[in-house]
């Protein structure tokens, strides 16, 4: 069987983020969600020396730099909003599956913004994934 090149990377994402779910539960047993969010970003900062792209950083276009910085800002702002939703009375059983649907927005907008199309098996797979994400976060 020939697996797509992104498959191995996706497996690493699943394992790393899957384990994060466990540590997140353990962390919030001891400290607040806000402190966990701060430590999350501190954890990312620990990797900065390792991922520093060297002189290549100064050759990226302004647009690419903006995409990177805005991407990081939006992702962490989203994480903050998720914590805020939970802390302002949202039930985890509703908020978690609702916010887990963000790939649906990506699926709907990807053809328009990135001009990408999916094959039929991929489309059915995307549908199954979305159902799975909601069921798993209930």
């Amino acid at each position: 069987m020939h697996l797509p090149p992104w498959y191995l990377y996706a497996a690493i994402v699943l394992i790393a983020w899957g384990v994060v779910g466990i540590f997140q539960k353990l962390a919030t047993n001891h400290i607040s969600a806000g402190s966990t969010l701060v430590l999350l970003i501190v954890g990312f900062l620990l990797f900065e020396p390792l991922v520093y792209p060297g002189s290549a950083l100064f050759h990226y276009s302004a647009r690419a730099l903006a995409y990177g910085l805005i991407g990081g800002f939006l992702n962490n702002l989203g994480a903050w909003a998720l914590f805020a939703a939970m802390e302002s009375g949202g039930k985890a059983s509703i908020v978690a599956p609702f916010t887990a649907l963000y790939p649906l927005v990506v699926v709907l907008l990807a053809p328009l913004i990135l001009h990408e199309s999916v094959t039929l098996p991929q489309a059915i797979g995307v549908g199954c994934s979305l159902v799975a994400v909601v069921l798993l976060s209930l």
Partner: protein
Amino acid sequence: MSVRNTLKAKWLWYSVFCLACWAPFTFCAKLGLREMSASGMQFLFTLGGVPIALAVLAARRFKFERNRKGTAYGLAVGVLSAIGTLALFAAYRTGGNTAVITTATSLYPMVTVVLAVGFLRERLTLIQIVGLVFASVAFVLFSL
């Protein structure tokens, strides 16, 4: 709860705001990765998150709970999240379909659910088992 009450609830709008942040993040990452490496994107992505950490700290008047266990677990959340994010950028960088990679990697709760059985002694619910079946079908379809 009536629809009107739900629409007035703060948590709903925070949740919508969360969706409104995470979907554009994906497009920013993908578009940026057309030019830069996964590690370059990770470097900038992290810097982009720093203002959020500072804002959260400022809102708490820079008070931080001193709890060793909590801090260790929180740091583990950060380190593992960073590894996952770097792998996500590498996956986008391969040129694979963005919608497929985004939905496939969003299935990480399946790992959490399975691990929670082993480590937190939680029991799988029937709904979660059905979710795992759907996730497995999705991965087979993505490998075709």
